[in-house]
């Protein structure tokens, strides 16, 4: 029943690492046993985003090369019941491992975890190939920008070529005010252009930066919009049908009045 999910995007900086960390935290808070694997060898960051950077001893390359046991490389996140991190190596490069080795590692992790989530590096080179090699399905992260959507399209084509035929789209950093104004590509348009199904929408929110500053997954902040969005994504991964959340700001006098008078 275990599943390997790769979080990918093509373009860098669209929120793959943040997405990986939050989906992992959300799944774990819903009782699943989860391991997050940072496959971005040479540009290790998932540990930092999760606030686990001081606890890294061994890494992915150590495990694959056999210089340590898998168990000793896993970093347990103490804030969550069943959340683990397998960090990337920082001093090696993407060619330090190959696709077969990643497949083998994923199979090994499957016997121990419900969900194995792989944080894929940006780009379409060896790092991407390694990350998708062992994946059962993919989450393609994009933002409502032309460059990110174009790269997402390229990645969707490459996933199919690499045998990953089940993939869904996560649209990150949506600004409702700009969409309304007509200055940001809307959700329907992105889906229409890319022709793939949606797994979630995450609003652009300063809480993400604040959480990352502190090294805490945003889902820990119960009240924030992104927390709700990521939890919804986690539920959909588990096969629970949840409607798309209302991205509108709840604050402001106008909406307060609207709430009081029941719209």
């Amino acid at each position, binding site marked *: 029943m275990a599943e390997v999910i790769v979080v990918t995007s093509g373009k860098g900086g669209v929120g793959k690492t943040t997405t990986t960390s939050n989906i992992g935290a959300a799944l774990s808070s819903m009782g699943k046993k989860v391991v997050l694997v940072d496959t971005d060898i040479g540009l290790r960051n998932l540990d930092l985003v999760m606030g686990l950077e001081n606890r890294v001893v061994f890494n992915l390359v150590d495990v694959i090369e056999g210089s340590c046991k898998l168990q000793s490389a896993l970093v347990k996140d103490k804030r969550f019941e069943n959340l683990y991190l397998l960090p990337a190596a920082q001093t090696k490069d993407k060619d330090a491992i190959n696709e077969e080795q990643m497949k083998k590692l994923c199979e090994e992790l499957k016997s121990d975890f419900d969900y194995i989530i792989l944080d894929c590096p940006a780009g379409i080179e060896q790092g991407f190939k390694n990350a998708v090699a062992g994946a059962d399905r993919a989450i393609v992260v994009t933002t409502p920008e*032309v460059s990110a959507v174009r790269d997402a399209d390229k990645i969707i084509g490459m996933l199919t070529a690499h045998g990953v035929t089940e993939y869904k789209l996560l649209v990150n950093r949506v600004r409702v005010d700009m*969409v309304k104004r007509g*200055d940001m590509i809307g959700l329907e348009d992105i889906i229409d252009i890319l022709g793939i199904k949606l797994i979630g929408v995450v609003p652009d929110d300063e809480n993400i930066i604040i959480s990352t500053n502190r090294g805490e997954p945003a889902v820990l902040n119960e009240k924030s919009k992104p927390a709700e969005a990521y939890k919804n994504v986690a539920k959909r991964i588990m096969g629970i049908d949840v409607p798309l959340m209302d991205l509108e700001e709840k604050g402001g006098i106008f909406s307060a009045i609207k709430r009081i008078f029941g719209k």
Partner: protein
Amino acid sequence: MMEFFNRLFPRNKSKNVAKERLKLVLMGDRGVSPEVLEKIKGEIIGVLSKYIEIEDNELDFKIANTENEDGTAIVPALVANIPIRRIKK
């Protein structure tokens, strides 16, 4: 005021510009590459040559931005300019 103008001229909205540009660029990315275009060209010329003689040197074959029929959007179109030397009998 800007809102009012945007509503009058929806095409000016930057999201529509983005959408149109994306659709075009993705068509190229997805496979209407110069090579594919060259193949399409070759096959169309092949069919036409059965009935007409074509001026090979002045052929123009490309994918270009064009306004759609009611002028509300820019759409990609295959534009071919094929000069005829003579009709075959």
